[in-house]
């Protein structure tokens, strides 16, 4: 514990609780993400992984507890204010702008970050730096060639990449990826994770992923959630050897197999 506490903490939760009626979706969640680390968040369906991202990003308000970005308590901030401070997420199910082109979408995100999206008296084309930056982000994700296509016409895998591009346009300090490769075929999901692995080390990444092979390849540490609470945390090797984790996943597998 002291080893991790000595490093700069990018994001942490303190005693975060949340219930929907009688269903506990977050139970005393205490997480510290050291800056620059690649974290995987795993756990069976319904463990509260996406809920935790919603709580961290302000899409949900916790019943109790605090969310800290660096040293700042951001529990009371609305989602867009957290984004502007560098806490950015992507969605498990594509949540994009169907009739905007990829370039327009990312340019919009860049304009919002730079605070120019309120100006209505100057044409967008005058903001060449913003457009260039958006184009550059799309380039790093191999989307430059299709950047003028409306989003709804992009291939599914390209739309997943565009999710990440939108997040990067906000210049995240902490990036929360909710199953970035959900629904993407195995060979493509490798490319997608390679892109994530290639992100600057200044960005702290937490990703939810079900594919253990990807988790062990791309995560330096793993958090396991069950029933709204954190079961354990450790290096991929420690998690792989953990009997309790195995029990949780074995139970899950048996349930799935019995169907």
């Amino acid at each position, binding site marked *: 514990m002291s080893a991790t506490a000595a490093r700069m903490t990018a994001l942490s939760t303190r005693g975060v609780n949340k219930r929907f009626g009688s269903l506990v979706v977050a139970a005393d969640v205490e997480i510290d993400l050291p800056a620059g680390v690649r974290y995987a968040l795993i756990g069976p369906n319904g463990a509260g992984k996406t809920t935790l991202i919603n709580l961290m*990003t*302000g*899409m949900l308000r916790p019943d109790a507890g605090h969310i800290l970005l660096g040293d700042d308590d951001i529990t009371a901030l*609305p*989602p*867009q204010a957290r*984004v*502007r401070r560098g806490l*950015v*997420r992507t*969605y498990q199910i594509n*949540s*994009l*702008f*169907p*009739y*905007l082109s990829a*370039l*327009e*979408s990312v*340019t*919009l*995100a860049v*304009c*919002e*970050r730079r605070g*120019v*999206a*309120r*100006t*209505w*008296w*100057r*044409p*967008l*084309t005058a*903001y*060449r730096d*913003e*457009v*260039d930056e*958006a*184009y550059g982000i799309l380039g790093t994700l191999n989307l430059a*060639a299709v*950047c*003028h296509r409306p989003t709804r016409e992009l291939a599914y895998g390209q739309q997943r990449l565009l999710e990440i591009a*939108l997040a990067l*346009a*906000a210049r995240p300090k902490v990036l929360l990826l909710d199953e970035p490769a959900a629904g993407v075929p195995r060979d493509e999901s490798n490319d997608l994770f390679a892109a994530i692995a290639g992100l600057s080390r200044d960005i702290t990444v937490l990703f939810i992923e079900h594919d253990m092979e990807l988790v062990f390849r791309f995560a330096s540490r793993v958090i396991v959630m069950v029933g709204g609470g954190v079961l354990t945390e450790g290096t991929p090797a420690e998690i792989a050897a953990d009997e309790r984790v195995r029990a949780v996943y074995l139970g899950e597998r048996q349930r799935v197999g019995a169907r």
Partner: protein
Amino acid sequence: MTTQTISGPHAVLQAQARWRTAEIAFWLATLLPFVLAPDYLVLASQVAIAALFVLSLDLILGFSGIISLGHAAYFGVGAYTAGLISVHGWGEPLSGLVIAGTASGILGYVTSFIIARFRHLALIMITLGLGLLLQEAANAASWLTGGFDGLQGIHTWPLFGRIDFDLYGYTAYSYALAVLFVVFVAARRIIHSPFGLALRGIRENGARMPAIGAPTHSHIRTIYTIAAVIAGLAGALLSQTTATVSLEALGFQRSADVLVMLILGGAGRLYGGLIGAVVYMVARDQFSGLNPQFWYFWIGLLLIGVVMFLPNGILGGLAFAAERLKSAARKRPPVSAP
């Protein structure tokens, strides 16, 4: 295959914002009534005012996805404000226009705080409620508004102090068309600005906007206020050019009519609303000439037909047809065999 040169990210965006030949042709065509139908200039001025009102709704509904069934509230406030200052001794049209736009803009800004918090069905009910509320308030305040009889004694002074408003509508149409054009150019500028892009983002996926750091509510408040100002300008033009204001300026019927015009023409395309206004107003004029009691039957038929066969409105249908023709031309081999 045609060779497509990829010239960086800017060329395509610039091409989107450029004035097209069809646009220039459209605005030149608005001058035709002076030559071709000088007997219909009064109608033409009504069309221009309706078009301005539709443009206002297009900015919120077509571009930002904010549905409204009570947009006549802002039109009515503009109309009554312009009428009232004229009745009380100030009939100068341009300053009247500015004052009316300011009044409706203030109402728009105040109500935008409620509007920004809701979407979809709730928004339909809220805008409808606001519209009804204002109409009843105007009815109750008959000492101010003239109530059911409307405002009496509006007199609009000559434009620029020298051009009288004539019976044939020369001045009225010129005036309304000029205001429409100026506001249109401003609206077009808004649409092609970063703010316009943010509005389209809200329309496409309002829930996603906070996750890219966008202050969605603040954006909605801004555009709603701008739209209210424009609606107020349209209302002011109506009371200045017709020298009457009645409760009908605030009525639900007007809110419904403007929505129909926008959907007929095609929402979210700037010109769609203008074309919708022309089609609707001319159709109303013609149909009510045939049978004054029955004309809404034909409007109903027109609306159903357009929505069934041209889901994106008349302009959407035209754009689709043009796209098909273009892609058919592209697919054809460069040297056709026969």
